[in-house]
């Protein structure tokens, strides 16, 4: 999805390539995502989704190509810190802390003023049903509780760009819905959300645009409806049908 409004571009990736020795993990991937957009990033296991996300955060260097977040080069670490929130697949939380300690620690590192941080943390804890367990050590938490804590810490500083890797994995339906609602609210407030997941109904529910990565290449991109119709899966086709069609071996051979 190529943006037409340069000022509104939140994420811009140009000809991203990543190789490991002779193996190409990502092959000239380009996309441009506007502010306030929820971008569903799909692809089978091993397609290069996590590599792409690490490139977008600057945690990994591309072999060639560039990434800019809100016009800032991603290797400008001091500037990029306040612009990006990232929730990787494994929640980056400290088991020796309680959720409250973890979030207060992140707020301190993000230079969020103490009063405002406390208020925001309490709101989020309450919203994600963690208030009663907020003082328990994270080591005693379920996978879903850790995931919710990590989601809160990734949005605590109101980032301009939020990158989520399987955010609803391991969550019960209520918590998964909370996350979906939060994603929509953040996008409405102007945050660009880059959402990588295998749960296609989540993408259908919240995404404004979809990109499908297969064998390190962006094989299709557009609105969910557009992608579904492009894949020629028939009138009753779903995003799942389209996904299966564009990531099939036959499709790869045609390319």
């Amino acid at each position: 999805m190529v943006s037409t409004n340069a000022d509104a571009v939140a994420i811009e990736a140009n000809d991203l390539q990543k190789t490991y020795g002779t193996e190409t993990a990502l092959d000239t991937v380009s996309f441009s995502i506007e502010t306030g957009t929820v971008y569903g990033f799909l692809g089978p296991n091993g397609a290069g989704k996590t590599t792409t996300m690490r490139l977008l955060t600057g945690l990994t260097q591309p072999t060639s190509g560039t990434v800019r977040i809100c016009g800032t080069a991603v290797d400008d670490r001091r500037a990029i810190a306040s612009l990006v929130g990232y929730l990787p697949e494994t929640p980056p939380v400290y088991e020796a802390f309680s959720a409250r300690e973890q979030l207060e620690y992140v707020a301190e590192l993000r230079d969020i003023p103490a009063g405002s941080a406390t208020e925001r943390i309490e709101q989020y804890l309450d919203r994600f049903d963690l208030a009663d367990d907020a003082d328990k050590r994270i080591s005693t938490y379920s996978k879903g509780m850790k995931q919710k804590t990590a989601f809160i810490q990734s949005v605590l500083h109101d980032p301009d760009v939020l990158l989520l890797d399987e955010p609803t994995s391991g969550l019960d339906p209520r918590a998964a819905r909370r996350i979906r609602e939060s994603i929509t609210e953040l996008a409405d407030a102007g945050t660009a959300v880059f959402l990588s997941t295998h749960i296609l109904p989540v993408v259908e529910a919240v995404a404004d645009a979809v990109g499908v990565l297969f064998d390190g290449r962006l094989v299709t991109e557009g609105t969910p409806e557009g992608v579904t119709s492009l894949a020629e899966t028939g009138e009753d086709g779903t995003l799942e049908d389209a996904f299966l069609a564009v990531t099939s071996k036959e499709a790869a051979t045609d390319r």
Partner: protein
Amino acid sequence: MTGRRDVHHAIRIARAEVIRELRGATGDRRRVIGLLMVGLFYGSGLLFALPAVYALGQATGTVQSIPYLGGIATVAPVSMVVLSIFRTSQQIGTIDSEELVLLTVHPRAVVLGVIGAEVVQSMLWFGVPIGLIATAFALGIGAPTLPVTAGLVLLPLFCWATVWGYAGGIGMLRLFRWLPGLKQLLKIGWALALLPIIVGSQYIGTAIADRTFSIAGLLETLAFEPLQSYVELAFVGTELFHSPSIGAIGVLGGLVALTPVGLAVATRQATTFWFTDDPAPEQPQRTERSVGGFEAPQPFGSTSAGAIAWGHLVRAVRQPQEFAHLMIMLVMLGPAVAPIVQVDGNVGPIVAAIGVVVGTYLAGAAFGLNPLGDDRPAFPLLLLTEAGPRTLVWSRVIAGLAIGAPIAFLIPLGSIVAGTPALFAVGFAVVGCGMCLTAAMFAVGIGAVYPIYEEQEYWGTETVVPSTGIMMVYFWVVAGGTVIGLILTWVVLTGAGSLSLLIAAGVGVYLLLTALVPYGSYRYAIRRYRTYTLE
């Protein structure tokens, strides 16, 4: 502005790291007991040492007369740098939750925070004993300011060593990333070097005892005068100190100047290391395949326990890192191997005895010291099969015997070529096999007493390791019992000594314990497994 902000963030990171470390170290009762034991051990030693240090202070007339000062002043900073390189390459070079920390603050703040935490933790662990020794010495020479001045002198030295050690450690990690074979080579080299080092340490101990080798002489040779002069600055304000030398001032200036340089180098190294990948993909280059399905060969295939034991052995070959805990045997074995080299005459019986001890140790230690912890990932499968707890426990005994018994049997027989009389070799081999059975049965029981489920870094590999306490108890009981058994075998075969009532009773008790304790331990393991099954 950015510098102040980084320091502000670094303080918070350091505080968080220290809190995490303290909570980790005191997280459960076992760790608290371990800490108390260490405290009691070293604390009691320190209490006995303090009066001697006080007396040394009283007897000291000049700084030069303090024993080993020059050597210690030279060796200590080098040791600190080496320790810091080791700590960095093993533990603090990679940071937990890196996706969070590296996307929240600047890498310089992370480096400062991690190094700050390391300095604080070192002070917490070593500051108290060093402070007490300094205080006792200060009281001895009548200079109460000494602990403060010693702290002021040590702090720049410690910061310099930690910062440069961190830079060196990250440099090593980068080197290992580009040359992964070098890391493996160093690991193997270190493991192989351990035995000669331990044997060598026995020699050095003997040489020190018979005065053919002098530590004082070695330290004097190593002493670097400017560093000694710098450490002497700790005595400023006392009668022992006269005026600072140019060398001391030069070292102080060097430490103050080189620490920020080291910090800049460390930050650059760490940034490159954290924000780049391995040049090769993480997947193994060679896809390992297994063909022909899983069929245990005879004699393993004839029973369920045997087939499961074969599974343990196959996994042992394919994932040898799970047996990192057996490395402790090398440490324990060193003092036993030393006599072989030192004995002038017939070494055969010693080789035979060591073979029996090693075989017996391995029979239990290889698969028995953490049975519940090792089996836990497969419990949902194992406990829903037809195999009962008895079969599961017995399979570990069989797998242990498959490794230990051949060693305990063949090394004594092989030692015949080294001079062991055939009768003794056969006697040791037969007794060794019996010992292997008792050791394997004993291991599964005490291993089930305190199961460990969490993986941890051990000898450079991430694995589930049995409890250290359990490993120690097992080693001393099994090694002690085996040695007693071998001595009895030797006495019986030589026909030496008369069998008094007391000796006969002692032998009877020994044999009874050797049979009953392992059996009871084995039964206990089965009972522990039963607690996980649905009746």
